[in-house]
């Protein structure tokens, strides 16, 4: 497989995943936060921008943090490279450069999603709220996964897609938990509000019901964090996602469970060791923020190592 094509598959999957994540974040938080009228707009909406990892850019573009601005910024802004519309657009561009390598159904699906999100009129949606728009994006992403699963041979190209979306998922979940953890509790005038926001975190990743089945308890920050960081089976936990990354990287290189074939595999193995044996108590003792920050840095390093090993290696000619 051409390096360029592997690169495009990797990014195609990442962009779709990022679009879905941002849509989930917006959809859940937007409606939940609307209820919390006792807080200032800034306090309510700021975490959302932090979770999307675009705090700085937002500051350059807007003077005020308001529901409408945040929605516009995360969903529609063309000059925000992480906005949903931009992610879908870039996913389509990547798909277009490799449309001979993906199935016709995959291409038509991504192309269809692109036309759908571009048919929305930002002004209308901003007044009616993000639900309709976000639902389209989520469903579009699910369709993409389904069509890919069902029509693309599960060869190395498929593994690059899987590395892409899993790595993106690990990073986004880390950012999501971190964004929530960073909102200081003492800023909340009502104690229950904190749990509201952790509930929103769970709902954003579709883990609300699973949480209750597992813990039979009310929403507690430690348990939510445990579920999203360390749970081996929930598809959006960091550990699960990293496990997927490892299994795909091994699928590509053909290396077995006892050794590693390249730097990306070594780093992934190292992250996974921690996720397997750390307890949530230890993590909170050391500080949640620092821990997640480290995970994000390592996820980033894994991405770079993959690129160096498979996409942009030096050719000695």
């Amino acid at each position, binding site marked *: *497989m*051409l*390096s*360029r094509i*592997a690169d495009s598959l990797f990014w195609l999957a990442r962009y779709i995943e990022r679009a879905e994540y941002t849509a989930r974040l917006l959809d859940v938080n937007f409606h939940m936060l609307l209820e919390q009228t006792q807080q200032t707009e800034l306090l309510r909406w700021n975490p959302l921008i932090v979770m999307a990892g675009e705090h700085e850019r937002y500051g350059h573009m807007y003077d005020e943090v308001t529901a409408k601005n945040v929605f516009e910024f995360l969903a529609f802004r063309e000059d925000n490279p992480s906005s949903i519309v931009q992610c879908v657009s870039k996913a389509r*561009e990547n798909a*277009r*450069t*490799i*449309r*001979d*390598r993906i199935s*016709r159904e995959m*291409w*038509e699906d991504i*192309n*269809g999603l692109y*036309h759908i999100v571009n048919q929305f009129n930002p002004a209308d949606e901003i007044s009616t709220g993000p639900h309709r728009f976000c639902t389209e994006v989520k469903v579009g992403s699910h369709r993409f996964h389904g069509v890919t699963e069902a029509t693309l041979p599960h060869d*190395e190209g498929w593994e690059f897609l899987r590395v892409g979306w899993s790595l993106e998922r690990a990073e986004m979940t880390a950012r999501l938990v971190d964004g929530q953890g960073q909102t200081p509790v003492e800023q909340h005038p009502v104690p229950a509000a904190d749990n509201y926001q952790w509930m929103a975190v769970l709902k954003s990743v579709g883990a609300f019901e699973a949480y209750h089945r597992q813990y039979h308890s009310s929403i507690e920050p430690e348990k939510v964090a445990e579920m999203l960081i360390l749970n081996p089976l929930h598809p959006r936990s960091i550990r699960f996602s990293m496990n997927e990354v490892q299994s795909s990287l091994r699928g*590509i290189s053909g290396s077995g469970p006892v050794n590693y074939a390249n730097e990306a595999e070594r780093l992934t193995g190292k992250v996974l060791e921690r996720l397997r044996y750390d307890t949530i108590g230890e993590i909170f003792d050391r500080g949640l923020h620092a821990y997640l920050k480290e995970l994000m840095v390592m996820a980033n390093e894994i991405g770079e190592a993959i690129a160096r090993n*498979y*996409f942009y*290696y030096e*050719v000695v*000619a």
Partner: protein
Amino acid sequence: MSANPAHSLVPGLFSGYDCGGFYDEMFASPGIPRPHYLKLFQSLAAMSPAQFEERRKLADLSFLLQGITFTVYNDGRGTERLFPFDLIPRILPWREWDHVNRGLSQRVVALNLFLKDVYGPQKILKDRRIPRHLVYSCRNFRREMIGVDVPLGIYTHICGIDLVRDSKTGELCVLEDNARTPSGVSYVLENRLVMTRTLPDAFQEYQVQPVGHYPAELARILRSLSPRGGQEGSIVLLTPGIFNSAYFEHSFLAQQMGIELVEGRDLIVDGGVVYMKTIRGLSRVDVIYRRVDDEFLDSLSFRADSMLSVPGLMAAYRAGNVALANAVGNGVADDKAIYAFVPEFIRYYLGEEPVLRSVETFLCSRPDDLRYVLEHLPELVVKATGESGGYGMLIGPRADKARIEEFRQCIQADPRNYIAQPVVPLSRVPSYDQNTGAMGGRHVDLRPYCLYDGDKVTIVPGGLTRVALQRGSLVVNSSQGGGSKDTWVLFGES
């Protein structure tokens, strides 16, 4: 009351249809369809305009969802557009197609012999059958190719030859040759697919020759060129990339043939051998179906500023380590001034008379022709010899004074770079006009795609019928607002 049964059927879609003094592919005379169009006409006659509109929307949606688009450049940012598809097919009965097929085969073989000669012994120049200066002054003549042995002696693996029907004679004649990187064949295949989905009822009334074997035939020819022998060859399609107007076609053909679609940056030349960069290191490439123009192929040989280039590619090609299709330097054969000599090539190399007529052509490099052209600019079509895609063209009768003067100065400054032809009144096919909700006659040409394996020429029946969708327009190029139609070659006469 009309005595003609067909006439009494004339329904909403065709009400007020006017052949306008042109050869109409569907109607022999107003209201009377030609025999091979009768069944289609009746099928459309049974349809209300609303029903037709519904089918048309279905076809458009199908193209949009598949992302079958092309890019236009002259609006400054390269916008993606749908290539308009008109539902009314262009139908050719077998006997006429057979004639065209023979004429095109003859022409392709002659063009190939010319290229082999002009980059080899140059007998035709020594025999003074074409002026040496005309060949050497051609912008696309590549001196680097002189003396190069190309695989199997084939230059013109793929040719797109544009035909038009002259309304005055009713005869199909050759308007120009495209022997470099002709595009459009993917639309032939996609149009057929959409056609059978959208008008299955009408399609079933006919026995239409299939077109789907094109990619397989092209792949067979490409495989035969491998310097390492048929089984071992690794074939790739080299594209300029996603911003090229024909990008859809490049990816489409690569996918259909099951070959790798590569860009210049994916390839690397080492020790005179071409490799592609894969996730597992370098992998040898034997045959390149290149859709990149000569001058962008190799920055060491041609344009140093090319971003698409594979440095060292020409050296590998000359060493015989990689095959290119089409060959480098083919532009000398499809130059619009050289065009005037193709009938001579056929006589010189094959000892035959041309089966298909060419359009009368004035070479501005000839003083007499130049004088005539300058005196008759408002009546003529002027074309820059090295251009393609409908760029660099003047249609005298449609141009204003300023534009004519602009061309006059260009021609005087560089006569070699221009030719002129009388305006050919192109034939028309009824096409749906969204503004009026009815059929209107629109001018068409036809580009068949000819594949040459050194032994025989294979032509997928029909080709791309391009249609000037704007009322009265004669320019069919997609970059200039043209659309396309499905082309049906019948197994019989109707």
